[in-house]
């Protein structure tokens, strides 16, 4: 099967029309390469924006044979309509049967548009490789993490949005050939435009973080988040919070993980002073290791966690920071 992958690029940690690839891009290319391998196909990556030739060639290491490079001065920021158009044109050029993209915020904002253009069924947030290619079946989460479902795509062309952090990057040898691709656009593609992007205080994107340190109402007030931030920084982790904390404004809404916030699946999740209501657990249950710190031994989080400490967060967390410092200096 000919597989096309959208290789998103980033500049200073934000999605951009020029810059570097990052982990989620390599995950998507690796994932596309595995599907191509299983179906004796080839992988073409489409890159939109100014990325260096060397970086594009290096996508060969992750399994791409060819790169279609779309450069256009109007595409210096993500534009869902124009990006979707370029991806769909690349898929048509390559007669691709599968289109893979990382289901980042950017991926989310273009996937449906590509699907309509190609009349393709879409798996929005796949968490694994296809379990079967006939019928084409892929697993994803549903009910905000409270369930799993196998999605069968019946259209000729299939689109897969792969959840960041759910597929391992694989590397090998290889160099991709780079070809300029002159996608065409209409005025309607530019009816909306990006005016400004703002970084959220230099932090790691929550959806891609390997480690997440999260805290809840047990911390009693926004002024007590210093220790959470310190622990996160020590571990190279992203910070998160529970719904009540975002609702009262102690932390911004974009940090809220849970059923009505974002769903994450890091390697390691620290839940500090979070009781573990069903809505919160839904958003974090696919974390590989969970550490719960809570002073209530009946807290439901202790039923969902890998490790638990029943104690006062204001005593336990500073101790944990000290121990992590010791560990870091010894390793």
């Amino acid at each position, binding site marked *: 099967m000919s597989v096309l992958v959208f290789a998103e690029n980033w500049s200073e940690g934000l999605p951009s029309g020029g810059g570097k690839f990052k982990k989620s891009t390599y995950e998507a290319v690796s994932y596309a390469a595995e599907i191509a391998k299983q179906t004796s196909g080839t992988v073409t990556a489409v890159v939109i924006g100014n990325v260096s030739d060397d970086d594009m060639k290096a996508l060969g290491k992750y399994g791409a044979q060819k790169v279609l490079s779309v450069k256009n001065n109007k595409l210096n920021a993500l534009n869902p309509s124009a990006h979707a158009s370029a991806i769909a044109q690349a898929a048509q050029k390559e007669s691709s049967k599968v289109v893979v993209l990382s289901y980042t*915020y950017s991926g989310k*904002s273009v996937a449906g548009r590509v699907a309509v253009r190609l009349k393709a069924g879409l798996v929005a947030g796949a968490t694994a490789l296809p379990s079967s290619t006939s019928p084409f079946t892929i697993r994803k989460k549903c009910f905000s993490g409270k369930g799993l479902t196998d999605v069968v795509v019946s259209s000729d062309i299939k689109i897969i949005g792969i959840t960041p952090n759910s597929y391992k990057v694989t590397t090998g040898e290889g160099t991709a050939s780079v070809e300029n691709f002159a996608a065409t656009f209409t005025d309607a593609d530019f009816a909306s435009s990006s005016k400004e992007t703002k970084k959220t205080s230099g932090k790691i994107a929550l959806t891609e973080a390997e480690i997440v340190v999260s805290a809840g109402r047990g911390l009693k007030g926004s002024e007590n988040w210093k220790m959470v931030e310190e622990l996160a920084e020590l571990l190279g982790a992203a910070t998160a919070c529970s719904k009540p904390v975002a609702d009262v404004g102690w932390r911004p809404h974009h940090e809220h993980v849970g059923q009505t916030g974002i769903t994450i699946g890091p390697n390691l999740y620290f839940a500090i002073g979070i009781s573990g209501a069903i809505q919160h657990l839904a958003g974090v249950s696919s974390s590989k290791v969970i550490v719960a710190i809570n002073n209530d031994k009946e807290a439901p989080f202790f039923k969902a966690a890998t490790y638990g400490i029943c104690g006062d967060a204001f005593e336990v967390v500073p101790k944990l920071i000290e121990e992590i410092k010791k560990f870091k200096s010894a390793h």
Partner: protein
Amino acid sequence: MKFLVCITQVPDTTTKITFTPDQKALNSAGVQFIINPYDEIALTRALELKEALGGTVTVLTVGQANTEANIRKALAIGADDAIRINAEPTDAYYVASQIAEVAKKNAYDVILTGKESIDYNGGQVPTMLGEFLGLPSISVATKLDINGTVATLEREIDGGKEVVESKLPLVAGVQKGMAEPRIPNMRGIMTAKTKPLVVSEPVGADKLSSSSQFELPPAKGACKMIDPNNVAELVNLLHTEAKAI
């Protein structure tokens, strides 16, 4: 200004999800269905903008007759009228096709949906709708202001926020933060009963995906409790046993 707000109903967030014995569907026994929380925020923002700019707010659902209680709730919150397309909303492409047909016949200036439904979590109806209608789509929007025929939005992106300017008409998927949901008052509940709710049959459209099987996530093993005075043990276990640091 004409607003269309697309709503869907989902299990209440406190629901303990289970599936039917053949694992082909949600076990809906005892489940209370609510308006998808993001859709409710979209509805509130549409009402706020209507109050400031004048106009009408129409709510639309693709759903069976059992969605009408939630449609009446949306009318009680303040929508002017409602459309129900009598079909099961199983595939985003199919749902967006149905909404697009309605939108083509009515010149809506602003079409809002939630950023995703909390049952299938796809988030693709707003983008597909944008493409079907040839309009800009702004996903995961946390702010929406309108000045004449231009809208300014803020949306979440990986690692930050983006300010987007868009011509009207537009489609946006609404994220928390854009407005605080409203609770219907008694007057709203009384008037909702007489507001128009038009039921129309679906147009022919393809379904390109379906859920063949559901299951619950694998259960976690027992939690290993660690003495709060021995935090070093936790760090040790995270390194040697869990290999997470």
